[in-house]
């Protein structure tokens, strides 16, 4: 990635030595955001597994898209209106 050309008016300090974008003062925060998102994704996978099991045992079918929207809204509420 570090060989990628950039726009002419790119400000300095946007990337680390490997060419990865940096946003937070502490670069560990950029990685931490990625970890949190990966964790949320894997939690959602488990949620869908649970829903499938419950439905197989006779529970009413659940709209996955609507449930996911609620899940994401709850999970990421603390970062809204930053």
């Amino acid at each position, binding site marked *: 990635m570090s060989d990628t050309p950039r726009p002419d008016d790119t400000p300095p300090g946007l990337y680390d030595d490997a060419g990865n974008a940096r*946003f937070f003062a502490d670069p560990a925060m950029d990685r931490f955001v990625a970890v949190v998102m990966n964790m949320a994704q894997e939690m959602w996978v488990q949620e869908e597994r649970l829903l499938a099991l419950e439905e197989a045992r006779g529970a009413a079918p659940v709209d996955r*898209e609507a449930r996911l929207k609620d899940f994401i809204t709850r999970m990421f509420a603390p970062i809204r209106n930053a």
Partner: protein
Amino acid sequence: MSVELQHGMKPDLTADEAARGRFVSGIRGLILNDLAADMKAAYDRRAAPAWERAHGRPPATSAEAHKALRGDPAFNIYSAMRVQAQKMVWASVADSVEREAGRLGAAAQAAAGKAVLNPELDVPKNVGAIEVHLMPGSYTRGGDSVEAGAVYDRGLAVFSMGLMGANLDDIGLSMARYIALRYPDFAPTRILDTGTTIGHNTLPWKQTYPDAEVIAIDAAPGGLVYGAARAAMQGQDVQFVQMCADKLDYPDASFDLVWSSMFLHELSKKQRAAALAEAYRVLRPGGLMLHMELPPNAEMSAFDGFYLDWDSWYNEEPYYKGYRDEIPQENCVKAGFAAADCFQFVVPSVGIYGEDAIAAMVASDAAEAVGQATTGRLAEGVMWFGFGAWKK
């Protein structure tokens, strides 16, 4: 929402893979709608006023809006999450493509799509060496196997959140419908799509003008092999050819329509100028050059310009901002077209708004509101921007 592809190369996902893809589409919805709105509010409330206090005027350009926002908490969280979500798009489809490589390869062979590769072609750096859209391996991943095409197709289905249609052809369908209605006497018999990738926005032109010979070119071989199979499986007779748009191997005056979608911004300034000149050269008199693209910065506010240019800094789209700083009509004139024969327009997504909305746009002659907030933004209520020129 995520979308399930409706053609023969569609994935056979495990439940976990489907859940991962659904999550990525969902989190992108949060980022591109809600967090983007939070960032705009932060810009209005904090970043722009701070800039104005320091400089005596508000940010005037995309680059200045970017500098004003750097370091703002809303910008940081939007950007960090959007970068990670982009990486998750490709990660969410990698397992299924790897697992189904054998099936897809065999299916492509059986489909007998029309793909003509050129192993001697020197694939440009912007196609093979830059990981465009943070896509690992870029467009040349897997060489001339179907891998790159499958990753792109499946990834775009996750990325687009349902806003590009069931087969990711909403741009082509919307644009082709607009042209057919706006110019009812235009009846192309030979159509060239430049930078086709997998042909998803090529097929609508064959559907709109079924008697036309349609050829789709790209520099990357894998997407063409995949796209040819994908087209054949949908019953569409389209030829896919490995070729660069800035060096066409076709004679002068040999096409009626030269089209591209979301392509010009991936070329360097020099390649782009050459591609437009080549389009002019191969068009017959009365022919049309038409490009769907991101709208130019000159048509929008500093913040809206920055919002689209974000990809240039953070999504491995190095030529994106340079392209958007240009004026489409000026590029067309440099390529040989007369200024009076150039035009630009905005068309509603046919998938979201329906054909009646496009017809109403044509009837009212109102497809000129290029600067409206939803133009070019892959979010709720997307509108597509296009420009073109007639060769007289």
